[in-house]
């Protein structure tokens, strides 16, 4: 498995080095309701550029709804989302992608009608010539760029440890590999901000560790990562900051140690202390 050199990304030591500039993502008084049910209510927080920032909370806390709001899949009922300083509330996902945002899905959204490589190549969409006439008539420049995209995609697959699936159909790949494939695809667009929705869900201990390594490597390359995860070991070990949600509202925020020690967080997960 070919990987870039992994450094011991101990969050605190690199914290000072990283915290420069305005937050890359900011939500202000964000809310979303579905027919009377308030999934997210008056949520405000920001994410520093270069961080690995985790969102935790019990099931139904609104984590995926938050993701969908940030990535334009849902429109907010109230409040706004600021990406790189610009108000992007309710902007269509493809335009957010053009601005440097990328994500994976809790329930895999793999293109099962294509090969693994093609899945990642689609991720390169924004960097390719997607006009009709060059496509119809097979302009040489388009063919050349496509070949480059193919090589890039193969490289990305290798980076996440999927070399042996390069020629495979997506439909024939095991679940763990598909989770990594989605990450490769999300990386293909060279995003500034990567949102990972439960990347370790359904994975065993070994696979979780592999994902952990991938995330660290990606972050080391300067990409800001927002993570929704239930695997507390991963979350605690990898995050620079954590936001804890409960019932659509902010419960706590801070470094992993701060959040883990917060009594409200403990109560939400384990029930109120006697």
């Amino acid at each position, binding site marked *: 498995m070919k990987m870039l050199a992994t450094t011991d990304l101990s969050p605190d030591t690199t914290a000072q080095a990283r915290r420069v500039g305005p937050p890359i993502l900011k939500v202000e008084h964000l809310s979303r309701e*579905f027919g009377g049910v308030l999934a997210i209510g008056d949520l405000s927080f920001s994410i520093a550029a270069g961080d690995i920032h985790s969102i935790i909370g019990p099931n139904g806390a609104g984590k*995926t709804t938050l993701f*969908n709001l940030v990535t334009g*899949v849902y429109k907010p009922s109230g409040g706004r989302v600021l990406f790189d300083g610009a108000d992007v509330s309710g902007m269509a996902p493809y335009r957010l992608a053009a601005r440097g945002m990328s994500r994976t*899905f809790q*329930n895999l*959204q793999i293109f099962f009608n294509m090969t693994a490589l093609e899945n990642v190549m689609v991720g390169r969409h924004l960097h390719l010539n997607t006009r009709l006439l060059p496509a119809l008539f097979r302009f040489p420049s388009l063919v050349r760029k496509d070949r480059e995209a193919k090589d890039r995609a193969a490289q990305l697959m290798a980076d996440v440890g999927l070399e042996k699936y390069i020629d495979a159909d997506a439909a024939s790949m095991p679940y763990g590999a598909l989770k990594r494939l989605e990450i490769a695809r999300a990386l293909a667009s060279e995003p500034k901000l990567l949102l990972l929705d439960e990347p370790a869900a359904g994975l065993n201990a070994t696979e979780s560790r592999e994902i952990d390594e991938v995330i660290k490597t990606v972050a080391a390359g300067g990409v800001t990562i927002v993570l929704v995860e239930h695997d507390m070991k991963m979350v605690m070990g990898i995050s620079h900051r954590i936001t804890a949600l409960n019932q659509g509202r902010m419960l706590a925020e801070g470094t992993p140690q701060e959040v883990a020690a917060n009594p409200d967080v403990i109560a939400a997960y384990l029930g109120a202390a006697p």
Partner: protein
Amino acid sequence: MFAELLQYLLSGLTIGAIYALAGLGFSIIYNASHVINFAQGEFIMIGGMASATLTASGVPLPLAIMIGCGGAMLVGVLVAKFAVERARNASTVTLIIITIGASIFLRGVAELVWGKDFKRLDAFSGETPIQILGASMQPQSLWVVGTAGVLIVAIGLFFARTLTGKAILATSHNRLAAQLVGIDVKRVVLASFALSAALGAVGGAVVAPITFSYTEMGIMLGLKGFTAAVLGGLGHGPGAVAGGLIVGIAEALGAGYISSAYKDAVAFVIILAVLLFMPNGLFGKRGTERV
């Protein structure tokens, strides 16, 4: 002036009643199985053709209608069993094409069995027009509207009061939950097809004296019934009925006041307008997709 308007309204109401029955049939099947049954119109056709041919060979009218109804129900169950249930988890496109295939197939069989000519069915109670406020109405129209009304009320009671009806409703709301409480959802789908077929067949029999029966009568009736269902909100029974009446009356008014050549286009313009501007119809609900 008023008499003319009334005339159009009455004829619109008459045909609208058939669209209502067809639309109701669509809704019932859609509710039970999330399938749009493009063969709905053929159930109407079977009812009409069977009644016409059987009465022509001496079978008493009520019996002829019942046989036609029974035949349509049988066909409905067969379509459900062999075409629709087999492709249970297929994509929407696939299911649409299957029921389109079924409708073409049924038309082909009907052509073989009954030939291509138009068949007459005598009006149930004679042809002396009834005069109402200057407009004249065929007694058969009363039969159409009356029968449709009775059937619609009966269906309403069926869903509200009987166990089978409630089982069908439950399946339409949540197939999995219905299975978990012991409802045989496969049977429910079959029942819904049978029910819709019966509705259509009776409608076909009752409208045959007005429109004649011929093997292609189902096509337009079915498509316009679909317009009625979508207008009312797909899956909403009473909505489909309202939709049918609206489409029928709009058609009649359009033909009367604007252009009779474009009569058939009215329903399709309506459906385009509905799909583009209020896809959930008059009474339908919005849904969201979970990602």
